[in-house]
């Protein structure tokens, strides 16, 4: 099967200002790739380059197997929800989708049928004939996703699709995103500021910082790559505190054990970086339980995408 997106050293500069540099990655069909980065990291520019709105300064890429030298062919194969896209207020949702379907080559009857099917898919069938001016932000985002699907794309780019939505709206949009990948088999490139959203919905993650790829891989790989601290907090019964410290100090993979100030009954355990965070916590818990220590609570720190993201984007 053709790789959905293949980018090699893609760069985009505006004079001396480098927006994106040496962007290299691949996305497979049916995969959801999360693109993370702080404001100004180059996420939107990267999407605009890959969707042929902007031409790259250096490098090459292909989308759905189509080289970047054929921009019109790429646009036929992709669907895009741009960040903060505007909508014609005086058109109805159905008119808007019909128009875009016709721009992608659908005949009138076919465009009507596609528009109705997509409105149903994104839960807007009942508001199909309402003016877009009366749509809420969440409805507009769902309409935007429907518009991105009028050409049955092989690759879908979504730039901040849940921006400004309430939790229910976010959940609805993310359901649509998962459906695009699982039911349509399209590759999805999802740009977001919301780390939990990316962590839950993306098979792989690309972290951009100041136009560069700071990290790429699965969430677990990125967490491992990051220089994020790997520590755990364990709550044990007060009478077992000394015993717990002694047991953990001698355990394999534990660098340090101490009692954090202000949290009675808690121990802070610092693990050796050479080993997996999750596995180390399991080992520490097992050692304590085997030693007869009453364990009341535990939490692992530094093993989430948010920790890795902050470590990678703040270090620069």
């Amino acid at each position: 099967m053709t790789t959905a997106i293949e980018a090699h050293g893609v760069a985009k500069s505006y004079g001396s200002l480098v927006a994106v540099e040496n962007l290299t990655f691949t996305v497979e069909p049916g995969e959801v790739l999360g693109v993370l980065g702080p404001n100004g990291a180059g996420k939107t520019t990267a999407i605009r380059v890959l969707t042929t709105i902007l031409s790259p300064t250096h490098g090459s890429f292909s989308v759905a197997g189509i080289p970047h030298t054929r921009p019109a062919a790429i646009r036929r194969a992709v669907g895009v929800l741009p960040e903060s896209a505007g909508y014609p207020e005086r058109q109805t949702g159905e008119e808007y989708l019909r128009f875009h379907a016709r721009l992608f080559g659908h005949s009138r009857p076919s465009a009507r049928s596609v528009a109705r099917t997509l409105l149903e898919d994104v839960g807007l069938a009942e508001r199909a004939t309402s003016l877009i001016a009366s749509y809420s932000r969440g409805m507009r985002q769902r309409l935007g996703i429907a518009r991105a699907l009028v050409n049955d794309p092989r690759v879908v780019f979504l730039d901040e699709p849940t921006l400004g939505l309430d939790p229910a709206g976010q959940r609805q949009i993310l359901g649509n995103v998962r459906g695009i990948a699982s039911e349509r088999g399209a590759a999805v490139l999802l740009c977001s500021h919301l780390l939990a959203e990316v962590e839950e919905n993306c098979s792989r993650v690309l972290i951009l910082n100041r136009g560069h790829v700071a990290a790429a891989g699965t969430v677990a790989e990125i967490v491992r790559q990051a220089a994020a601290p790997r520590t755990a907090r364990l709550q044990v019964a007060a009478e077992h505190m000394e015993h717990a410290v002694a047991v953990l100090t001698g355990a394999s993979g534990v660098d340090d054990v101490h009692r954090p100030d202000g949290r009675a009954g808690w121990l802070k355990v610092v693990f050796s970086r050479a080993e997996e965070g999750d596995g180390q916590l399991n080992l520490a818990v097992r050692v304590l339980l085997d030693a007869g220590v009453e364990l009341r609570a535990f939490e692992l720190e530094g093993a989430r995408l948010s920790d890795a993201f902050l470590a990678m984007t703040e270090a620069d």
Partner: protein
Amino acid sequence: MTELVETRDRARGERSAPGWLVVLGQELRDLWLGGRGLVLSFAFSLLVGIIAYLVATNTDLNFLEQRESTSLTLQVAVAIGGMLTLLVAADAVSGERERGTLETLLLTPVSRRELATGKLLASLSLWFAAFIITVPYVWFLGNGVGIVDEALVAGLAVGTLVAVFLASLGLLVSCFAGSNRVSLSLSLFVLLALVAPTQLPAGAQQAWAGDLLLRVNPLTAGERYVSKIVVSGHDWSEDLSWLLSPVIGAVVFALAAILVGGRYIRLRGGVSG
């Protein structure tokens, strides 16, 4: 994907329209069903009605010859009708850019030239509406002296050339302008500059420099041609030299708007996100 869609539609006997035609259809719907075209046309009909009433009254008082009053009404219609197309075209790209709707258009396989063509043709619809509104006034003013047919043909020909020229100019400005406000202001300024030579004293207009200025300006040259036919009663082929700049202006600016302006239908460079 589009090839698949087109193949499927062909198999059903359904044909997809060219991109410029789809854009034209949508622009016409937005302009006329959205209400903007109707409001502008209503304002135009009020203005032409007032002008026609004033010149008709003056004709009754023998201040204006009937042919002159017909010509004046027609010239006002050409100038204002052209201005309406200019205003709509000046909003065509910069307006979409400001409303955030341009990016989704650029993401379709429709070429930028097709976008420019569709938008240009849609803006011209305002001129044709303005002309239709003008017909009864020209008939009323010119009926007595038997110049209605000549006046309407000359008005339609010159008005169409002027409208193409002005709409193309507006579209070009809109493609390059950083904001909609700049596009509209600059377009109106250019229109005023084009109208300015008509305010020169008669002596200055007859001098070689004044005559050249009137001839190279598509708006003034076109209006002079209308005047030659309607007021002076010349045959349409007698003063074709006055049609030279409207024809050249319309062709050159339309090509520039579609070929050059089309290339500049793009988002302004940004690096956010």
